[in-house]
């Protein structure tokens, strides 16, 4: 007879179900992304996924873990997709591969694999790559540039020259550069009026991607896979600080709407800071985590040296998460209103 501990009834839930739902929730954003920049993003998703699965399998084999069980959990795919979605869509293939390898091998498996990594692997990949290859990581396709799949493939595979025309910048980056170069002679209102780059409020088209992520995130929340705490706190921090500075000096600071819908804000709010493994888990902890991440992301993207701050903000909060969790343990049953 086997020894099976109680309970004998189990809810129908599994890690792979969780991961599949996260992937599903990413679909609207990906669809908008593909509509915006063309099929290149799909190519990147495939490259990243293949690399991630291969790296995962290799690491599992090296560590002597059951392959099938862990490969089917889908966590590697989620990491891969997040990497592909945060990297520039026309980044060379090896950049994506390097990032993914770094994420899976170092950030995930050296810590013991699924569920044990203190840092978000996708964000580690992004940070490592932007620090190592700042130029490549800042080359975004000029919006509205529609290239056929073959040309995009050629760029990704390094077969075609990385023409300057291809290499724009994200709205955030472009704005920062413009402000710095302009040395105060150009103001935000003027820049935003420039429809070619900025569209109506965020980068033209990018707001649709952000909206896609938002929809997916709301669905995740409805499915109770994420709680509202971290995303709301993150977005609130973003709105508060950007709103305050925008009201104080509208000429040099962009509006909250712009910040909400550009860069990695929405992706970060719903898919990255909600990662339970590397994030906070207590309700109060999640609020602190989200709020601080929003604040840091804003500070780094506006005042710092990198085009977007979400990745660094998330990593910084990742390393604070264990301490925050310890300090924000909720009162347990029967201990409310008492000295703990």
């Amino acid at each position: 007879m086997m020894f099976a501990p109680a309970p004998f009834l189990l809810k129908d839930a599994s890690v792979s179900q969780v991961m599949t739902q996260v992937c599903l929730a990413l679909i609207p954003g990906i669809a908008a992304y593909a509509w915006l920049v063309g099929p290149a993003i799909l190519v990147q998703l495939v490259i990243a996924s293949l690399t991630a699965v291969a790296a995962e399998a290799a690491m599992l084999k090296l560590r002597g873990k059951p392959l099938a069980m862990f490969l089917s959990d889908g966590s590697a795919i989620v990491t891969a997709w997040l990497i592909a979605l945060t990297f520039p869509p026309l980044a060379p293939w090896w950049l994506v591969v390097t990032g993914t390898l770094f994420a899976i091998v170092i950030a995930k498996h050296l810590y013991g694999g699924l569920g044990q990594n203190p840092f978000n692997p996708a964000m580690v990949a992004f940070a490592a790559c932007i620090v190592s290859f700042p130029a490549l990581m800042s080359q975004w396709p000029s919006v509205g540039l529609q290239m056929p799949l073959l040309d995009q493939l050629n760029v990704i595979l390094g077969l075609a020259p990385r023409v300057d025309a291809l290499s724009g910048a994200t709205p955030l980056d472009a704005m920062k550069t413009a402000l710095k170069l302009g040395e105060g002679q150009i103001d935000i209102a003027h820049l935003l009026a420039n429809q070619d780059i900025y569209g109506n409020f965020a980068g033209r088209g990018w707001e649709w991607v952000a909206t896609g992520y938002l929809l997916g995130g709301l669905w995740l929340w409805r499915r109770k896979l994420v709680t509202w705490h971290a995303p709301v706190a993150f977005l609130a921090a973003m709105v508060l600080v950007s709103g305050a500075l925008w009201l104080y000096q509208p000429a040099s600071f962009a509006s909250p709407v712009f910040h909400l819908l550009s860069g990695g804000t929405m992706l970060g709010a719903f898919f990255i800071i909600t990662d339970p493994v590397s994030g906070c888990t207590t309700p109060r902890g999640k609020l602190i985590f989200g709020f601080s991440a929003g604040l840091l992301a804003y500070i780094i993207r506006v005042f710092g040296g990198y085009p977007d701050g979400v990745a660094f903000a998330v990593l910084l909060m990742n390393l604070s998460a264990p301490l925050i969790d310890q300090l924000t343990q909720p009162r347990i049953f029967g201990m409310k209103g008492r000295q703990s």
Partner: protein
Amino acid sequence: MDILLAIAIMALGAVVLGAALGFASIKFKVEGDPLVEKIEAILPQTQCGQCGYPGCKPYAEAIAKGECDINLCPPGGMEGVQRLADLLGREVKALEAEEKPKQVAIIDENTCIGCTLCIQACPVDAIVGAAKQMHTIIAQQCTGCELCLPPCPVECIHMEVIPETLDNWKWKFPVIEIKSAPHDSAPAKEAA
């Protein structure tokens, strides 16, 4: 001249700092060593002397002074070593002797001659009996130190591993269960 000046200044500094340190060493003099108590709390109190010290307290004092290693206590086991290492921030070392399961001494009723030698040897007064009467060991109080074994002239004392009962039964560490033939087999315990 410069050199002299430099020496003078350094000497001045030395005197000032030395005076400050001297003052501090008087002001913050530490008496006693509360650390010994913390160490002793970890030790199993078998008083068996296997560490080479006459009892647990002397061993604790020796550890606190840094005179000996933390891996000399076999009854405390690897876990004791681990906890000592945690307390003292020292490296965990393998035990000097091998670890034994917890035991209790049993006196063979029919062989005991009532010589009282074991009673004198027992460090924790766990043996009762009077001269020429059979001695018996109070099992709950026996620490399993084996100190009563050598003095016994008729070798009537032996050690027995404490059996598992409902009182000392423990839940085992969960492991991935291994399925075997179902039904009516022997009491299933996890493959520990």
